[in-house]
């Protein structure tokens, strides 16, 4: 078996609006190895959630994969018939979402919602699935699971619901878990708890994690490798340490500088927090050349002339910049 759980090659996602096709995500390349924690970072609307949905085959019209390959454990997903894709989904690749409040079916007990995974992918009877569901709830550290199994989502707190989501996602010991901003909607006090829980369970099950977040701090702390996305492209891909200590792309540098740190404004005599000037370009008018060029202090005429390719860095990792640091 190959070492890579997921191999994404030159992935493109487009928005089809009648005859017009607008590329939303382009040239995304990355691999995730067995048991690895991989981070995908970027602002809202940069295409990171689209990538996640594409990996699980969950893109909805008008969005669709328009190019590239997605290989899950060496198997190309594109030519798979929907039936096959359904069998992989939930079993080999599963997802947890941002909004635990609305991600669960309000009319079904959490036991049925977890148990459904075993019915679908393990062929268990509802009765046997129920027992497995209790086990799964126990794994996500929900107290008195045999009682909670009969609860409806509205009877649980946000953190508890996210635990249920995790139990569902990890029920079938998937090879890859896609966590799309799993803690964004939660109280700060339980965010760390939930992230720890996910990582611990995945470590135990040998599940690789793709952690999607706009929280650079979180990603740097828990991931092995990180990819930074900007305006539909990956602009830098490094080990988590390096991206923090020696960011190569001006955008990454900007992001890290923008992280608020206690006392720094005083230190630098600043009135305001540091920000990246300008705004993210709209999907319909991405610049010709480097997409970050309009906001970049290092941009030259060359940057604006033609699309910039990813280049390898000497110290490992890749960057999409002509004037990287």
């Amino acid at each position: 078996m190959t070492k890579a759980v997921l191999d994404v090659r030159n992935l493109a996602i487009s928005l089809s609006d009648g005859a017009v096709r607008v590329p939303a995500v382009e040239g995304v390349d990355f691999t995730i190895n067995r048991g690895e924690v991989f981070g995908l970072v970027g602002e809202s609307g940069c295409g990171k959630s689209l990538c996640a949905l594409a990996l699980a085959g969950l893109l909805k019209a008008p969005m669709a994969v328009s190019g590239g390959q997605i290989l899950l454990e060496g198997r190309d997903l594109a030519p798979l018939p929907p039936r096959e894709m359904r069998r992989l989904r939930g079993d080999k690749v599963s997802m947890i979402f941002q909004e635990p409040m609305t991600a669960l079916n309000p009319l079904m007990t959490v036991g049925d919602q977890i148990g459904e995974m075993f019915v679908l992918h393990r062929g268990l009877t509802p009765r046997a699935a129920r027992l497995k569901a209790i086990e799964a709830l126990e794994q996500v550290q929900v107290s008195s699971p045999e009682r909670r199994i009969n609860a409806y989502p509205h009877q649980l707190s946000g953190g508890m619901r996210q635990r249920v989501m995790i139990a569902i996602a990890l029920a079938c010991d998937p090879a890859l878990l896609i966590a799309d901003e799993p803690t964004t909607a939660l109280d700060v006090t339980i965010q760390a708890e939930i992230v720890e829980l996910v990582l611990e369970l995945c470590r135990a099950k040998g599940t690789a994690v793709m952690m999607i977040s706009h929280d650079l701090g979180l990603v740097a702390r828990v991931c092995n490798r990180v990819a930074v996305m900007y305006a539909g492209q990956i602009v830098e891909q490094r080990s988590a340490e390096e991206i923090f200590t020696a960011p190569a792309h001006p955008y990454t540098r900007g992001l890290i500088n923008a992280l608020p740190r206690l006392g720094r404004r005083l230190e630098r005599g600043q009135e305001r927090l540091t920000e990246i000037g300008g705004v993210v370009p709209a999907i319909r008018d991405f610049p010709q050349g480097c997409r970050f060029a309009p906001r970049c202090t290092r941009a030259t005429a060359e940057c604006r002339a033609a699309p910039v390719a990813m280049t390898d860095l000497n110290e490992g990792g890749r960057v999409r910049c002509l004037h990287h640091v």
Partner: protein
Amino acid sequence: MLNVLLRRLFQAALTVLVVVTLVFVLFSVIPGTYASSLQADKRDVSAEVLERIEAELGLNDPLPQRFGRYMAGLAQGDLGVSYATKRPVADMLSGRVWASFRLACAAILFAVCIGLPLGFFAAMRRGSWLDTATMTLAVSGLSIPAFWAGLVLMYVFSLKLHWLPTFGYGSGGLKHLILPAITLGIAPMALLARTTRAAVLETLNSDFIRTARSKGMSERRLVLRHLARNAFVLVLTTIGLQFGSMLGGSVVIEKLFAWPGVGSLLIDSVGLRDIPAVQGAILVIVLFFLLINTLVDLAYLVVDPRIRYR
């Protein structure tokens, strides 16, 4: 639970009181009495006779006195005696309630059986010809006057095709029920198709459907286990409201099809200014509405675990 029912009962009593009062006051404001309606009927009634009738029925008494007399009777479950037929109103209603109830049930059954699937498939094939056709049908169904639709149905299915009887109650069989039920059900059917379509679309867009998809289930299972029930919860209120208002809505249809229900009694009695009969008919219509609403509330307890009455 019991608490809820008791509160409901109190609310119902209050509603009935308001409605009865309103009708009584309205009928004393509009011109004409039972006696004058006889004259309007071009019957040869002398002035002396009219005066005697008015005196006998107590129509000349002041309003508070008449109202008090009626309410005193009502409190004891006495609906009074019809001016026109001299029969107890309760007796007149008893047979008619069943006829109206049958009509309402058949009409809502028609509306639900056609409207729900239409709306559902329109939403699942959003933007297709089926969707367009359904929504066109729905708008037409809501805007066509029911009595006109009834006349057309009568013309086609009775006069031309001879499949069904034109009007009347017959011996209480199904044949006579079909046309009035469809006529009465067209508008609710159209409304339900629209509501269902909106509900299904809303549910399809919800996060938990995305979760269900990410679990890797078939579309069939997705629809049956996750979509249908959630969408139905959104439609249930509309079904209840439509059903509840059906007795009131059937007034015109009953007249058109000569259906011996509460509605046609109401129309006849209004013409005659036969106030006890009018009050009785309206009372039945209001009670039916309140009853159905309560039943819908109870149904929510069963269908939606988020709702628990304290």
